[in-house]
């Protein structure tokens, strides 16, 4: 599904080069639930953004679904993000004065073809994240947990190959954190590929596999022995 080989990323600012990623290779299988862990500033977001084709690596290869991303132009990358990737960010990034429903519909506006059943699909997706009675609320009227669930619905609307979540629970209280993690576990059980970036071991332990990032390299990749069953909650 996702294959990266020897990815390097170096930020250059005022002629000072800071290597952040120093050669990362990994592959993620379809249907996997992977957590990338590391302390703040280790380059987790940088890696995530490269995986999501929002940013380009200084070196190395990225293959998504068998396609080498390197050769794609800007429009093709947009189309690829639209079709294959669903993003969930720490800050939710919803359009504030827009309803939950319209926020979820946003990726469809940029789809190759606006589906005739778009609204029906968006409503169904909102129902699946437990927001059936919040559809017409403005994003700014929703709690943090609700906003993040709208963001998840938005990530799901185009039926992406993978969900990339960067600190999805970083701005949430423990109750909302659990709701979000439950949704991820359920989505994974339904076969969805999920990559979660976090500094929080408790969050990472919901995943099947945990990668540890340190000093720009993956120092540890373990199958999660303590994997909890999501129905335990």
């Amino acid at each position, binding site marked *: 599904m996702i294959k990266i080989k020897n990815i390097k990323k170096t930020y250059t600012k005022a002629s000072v080069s800071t290597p952040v990623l120093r050669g990362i290779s990994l592959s993620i299988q379809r249907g996997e639930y992977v957590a990338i862990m590391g302390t703040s500033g280790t380059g987790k977001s940088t890696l995530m*953004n490269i995986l999501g084709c*929002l*940013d380009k690596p200084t070196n190395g290869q990225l293959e998504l679904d068998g396609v080498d991303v390197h050769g794609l132009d*800007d429009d093709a990358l*947009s189309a690829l*993000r*639209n079709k294959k990737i669903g993003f969930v960010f720490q*800050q939710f990034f919803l359009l504030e004065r827009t309803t939950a429903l319209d926020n979820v519909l946003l*990726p469809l506006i*940029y789809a190759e073809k606006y589906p005739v059943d778009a609204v029906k699909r968006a409503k169904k997706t909102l129902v699946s994240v437990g927001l059936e009675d919040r559809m017409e609320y403005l994003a700014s009227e929703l709690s943090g947990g609700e906003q993040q669930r709208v963001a998840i619905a938005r990530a799901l609307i185009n039926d992406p190959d993978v969900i990339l979540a960067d600190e999805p629970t970083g701005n949430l209280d423990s109750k909302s954190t659990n709701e979000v993690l439950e949704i991820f576990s359920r989505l994974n059980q339904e076969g969805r590929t999920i990559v979660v970036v976090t500094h929080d071991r408790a969050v990472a332990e919901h995943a099947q596999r945990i990668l540890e990032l340190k000093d720009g390299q993956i120092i540890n990749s373990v199958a999660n022995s303590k994997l909890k069953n999501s129905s335990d909650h």
Partner: protein
Amino acid sequence: MAIGVAAVVVMVSMGRGIQKRVLDMIHDMGTNLIVVNAGHITLVGGRERQSAIVTTLRPGDSDAIQDHCAFVTEVAPETSRKMNVQWESENLMTDVVGVTPAAFQVRNIKIEMGRYFDSAENDTARRVALVGSVIVEKLFNAEDPVGHRIRIGQAPFEVVGVMKAKGVDANGVDRDDRILIPIKTAMRRLVRTTYIQKIHIQVAHSGHLQRAEKEIRELLRERHRLWDKPDDFTIQNQATLVQTEKESTRTLTLLVASVAAISLLVGGIGILAVMLTACRERRREIGLRRAVGARRRDIRTQFLLESLIIAGLGGFFGAALGMLSAFLASKVGGWPAIESWDAIGLGLILSAIVGLIFGIYPASKAAALEPIEALRAE
């Protein structure tokens, strides 16, 4: 923005108004016309004003022009005064104008009902009158006035005809609110003066206007024994009249045009500023849109559309404001203005163009943002 569009609307409306006024003038006066006025004529607020009563222009001048000037085909002297007119129990004040039958042709006066008066009636100073449609309306309560007797001042007159309606002239005078009577009747029996106010002179064709004007000036100066004194009359030929008319309003049109240009520019810069701010403040939105699949050109289109909408709103209010100003300018200021729907169209198109031109830069800037930079923005 709004002011710019308003100015465009005002400008076009006034342009139309002036054009109509010139056409009216030509229509009213026939073609190839020279007008001699007693004393000095000045333009005040786009309208002719006679400075003072001057008594030196006489019927004899009119006859002399007819007899001695080579290019002249028709001469129509005129005297007029505002007088009280009475019919049965109704009465009103109106312009009573003494003319010769030559005026009918020279001034393009047509009969609606009844008949003209003729030279014999003029020579014998008969008390006959032609009335305008406003008189029929107000004095006769829209009844057929032909054959009825009216009183002009104290003297009884018979209405022999009704003139075809002509509307308001270039100087804001309602040409239907007047009564024409033979000039000799007017001078002998009514106003009892020996002087006249105007002579309309027709020449064979417009190429003769300048030479005829020169001849008439020399003749009148000689007859009035002016020697080295300035003219005690004003000669205008139609070409000059049209010219003056255009000049008197050109300054204003220029002013309005520059206001239009400047405010459209200011409006455009306003849009530029607003959209640049939007581009900066909405970087996260741009980043998010890019993340979920918007291409650069989608972002550009969105921002351009927003510029257009702002410009369109400005244009809309401007059009309304412009209509209002043009209306006020014509009603209160006396400037000619014709409401023009296509001027509003032009105004809206101009504002759209301004919106597009000044929207391109911010839109391109928004589109050029790298998605990752945009998302990371605070």
